[in-house]
């Protein structure tokens, strides 16, 4: 048995919920920070609170993702994405099911390749979110210790980290959904 494999589905659901909170909170945070460019700090208390929510959501999402990672690595990546035989078998089965259902079957590709490119994009996402998580924690510290309202010279770093935080959260969410779409709505090819 792989570590936490029996809990993979509930972990995935909590991971998705935490990621949804993360995407919403980081987008909200970045949009509120834009007012600082014009020296308007009236939303600073709420923005500071959002910096805390973002950091908590990022760390939670990151930890849950890491707990799921052993199951992904074996059951999804090794047994499916990097396994052309499994993909070919699923493509055949789907084509047969299309005919049974009576919908025009998707023509089977002449050469079934592996889904390794998807796995590699997932690898890229892992590195982006690791840096985004670190940026989120540092942004939280800056929001308490050197906020642009109190120290305007920190504004560019603050805004930059908010952009990194938001961009990496979106990247993680989109790549995560694309990865999960294989073997579901997207089919194997």
């Amino acid at each position, binding site marked *: 048995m792989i570590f936490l494999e029996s809990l993979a589905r509930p972990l995935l659901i909590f991971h998705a919920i935490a990621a949804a909170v993360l995407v919403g909170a980081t987008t909200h945070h970045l949009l509120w920070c834009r007012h600082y460019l014009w020296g308007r700090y009236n939303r600073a208390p709420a923005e500071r609170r959002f910096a805390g929510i973002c950091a908590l959501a990022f760390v939670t999402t990151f930890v849950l993702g890491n707990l799921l*990672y*052993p199951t992904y690595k074996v059951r999804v990546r*090794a047994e499916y994405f990097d396994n052309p035989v499994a993909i070919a078998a699923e493509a055949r089965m789907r084509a047969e099911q299309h005919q049974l259902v009576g919908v025009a079957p998707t023509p089977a590709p002449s050469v079934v390749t592996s889904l390794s490119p998807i796995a590699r994009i997932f690898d890229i996402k892992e*590195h982006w979110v690791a840096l985004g998580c*670190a940026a989120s924690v*540092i942004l939280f*510290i800056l929001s308490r210790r*050197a906020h642009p309202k109190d120290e305007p010279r*920190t504004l560019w770093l603050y805004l930059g980290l908010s952009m*990194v935080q938001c961009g990496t959260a979106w990247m993680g969410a989109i790549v995560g959904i694309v990865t999960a779409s294989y073997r579901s709505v997207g089919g194997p090819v």
Partner: protein
Amino acid sequence: MRARAYYASCAALIGFAITYTLPIYAHLPRTFYDPVARRWFFAANSTPIPMGYVGQIVWGIAGALIAAGATMMIVSRRSSTEGPSERGAALGAAWTLTAIAIVIGYFTWNNWP
């Protein structure tokens, strides 16, 4: 205090970015977890299934803590409310954001399908 927090934050992120990348770039040993055999081991490289990601994150956190600690010791404690200088703040922001951009670019380039 604000200057120390600011420079330590910059150093922590730069330290994280560099030491997170270092074991991959320089093939340094790190902790791997083999999910099939359910065991941890320490190595520079491994077969595809064992996961080196956790070891890489440990490298990054260690680098961030060391860099932030060293910066806090170096930066003066003379004024408790003084912020970073204009030049220092700009350089700190530029170095930090550039380090993040380079590391993101490095991993994107090396893993691009």
